């Protein structure tokens, strides 16, 4: 064969070889088929572990109850018992942030937060219509709900 044909051929073969060589170093050892299907289970195995170690932010009411017994007790007896503390108080994790870092737990006392459930939407047969509701324009405009209603047990007025 002529040299002008062979030369580019060697270059091309060399490049392919280089790619295979680079692949040895770049592709992690745990990359492969981890399961039944090449289509769905072809991945880097350690990534599963990495996702499991993602930090948890919302620790749940039981973790709040360890210190705030009274508030949790008040909240559990009222109609707001189904609401998690962190829905209004903000997430307390990841561990080390609360209670060590005072800044971390921003309490949301805004009227808008209450309006998520208690703004009147007149929808027939919807679960929303069963909640006690107000019309924003007609009920104590621009006042914060918590000035009058105790959010932990809304049947109680704030003294």
């Amino acid at each position, binding site marked *: 064969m002529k040299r002008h044909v062979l030369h580019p051929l060697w270059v091309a073969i060399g490049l392919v070889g280089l790619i295979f060589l680079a692949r040895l170093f770049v592709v992690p050892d745990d*990359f492969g088929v*981890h*399961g039944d*299907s090449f*289509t*769905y*289970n*072809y*991945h*880097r195995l350690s*990534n*599963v572990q990495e*996702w*499991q*170690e*993602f*930090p*948890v*932010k*919302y620790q*749940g009411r039981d973790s709040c109850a360890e210190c705030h017994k009274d508030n949790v007790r008040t909240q559990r007896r009222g109609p*707001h018992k*189904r*609401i*998690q503390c*962190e*829905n209004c108080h*903000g*997430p307390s994790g990841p561990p080390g942030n609360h209670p060590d870092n005072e800044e971390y737990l921003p309490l949301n006392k805004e009227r*808008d937060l209450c*309006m*998520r*459930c208690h*703004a009147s*939407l*007149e*929808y*027939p*047969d*919807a*679960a*929303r219509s069963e*909640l006690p509701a107000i019309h*924003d324009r007609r009920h104590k405009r621009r006042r914060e709900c918590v000035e009058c209603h105790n959010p932990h047990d809304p049947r109680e007025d704030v003294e």
Partner: protein
Amino acid sequence: MSCSRRDFLKDAVSGAAATVLPLSAFTFLTTDEAKAAIAEATVRWAFLVDTTKCVGCGLCVKACKNENEIPYDAPVTRTWVERYVVTKDGRTLADSPNGGRDGFTTGTIRGEEIDPENVAKAFFVPKLCNQCDNPACVQVCPVGATYQTHDGVVLIDREWCIGCGYCIMACPYGVRFFHPEHKVADKCNFCYHRITKGMQPACVDSCAFGARRIANLRDPDDPVTQIITTERVAVLKDEYGTKPHVFYIGLDASVR
């Protein structure tokens, strides 16, 4: 047909060897080894959404964004809540402002004031990743950056994803988006870091109305699994053949 003694012995030995040798391919497992081998099949995560219970408060969307470090004000979210209003004159209106992150507090949909008298039915539909059995998003990934775990959850390898966006296009449910900070594809993973620790996903915990629940389909004693297997539930876009694993109670035909 003639057969010498020599041929007969030869065939007999090789025949016996041919039947016995494949058996050696099977290995005897100890009880622990057998348990470990089938352990992979003891969990299959699924989700149950009861649309009749959802009030559209959007606290699930807020919790999800905080829990999973999704930029709060960016127009992307792993889960969202849609509102559907079907009017008496036959129109279907739907909206999901900010993914329902701040709840639904007015009757106005896309700038249109709806007369409450004209509402035939209205409901809220939370949406999230369906963790399909045949995930189209995984099929199209050119680099193996997204995959299905043994417990059915589809994950994305943030180190391996090149951000090409094929999976975002492939998902029939539109649950994938481009993460503005990590510059990779992102989506709901049922809070994999929580469910593998025995906790509930953040959206499930934050829902005060029990509209969202998580189930292990391989556990017949799981109360949510019992609802999925014995009550009337539906899935979204069944016709795509993706075998979605988010099941809905009270799903209306107008939901897309």
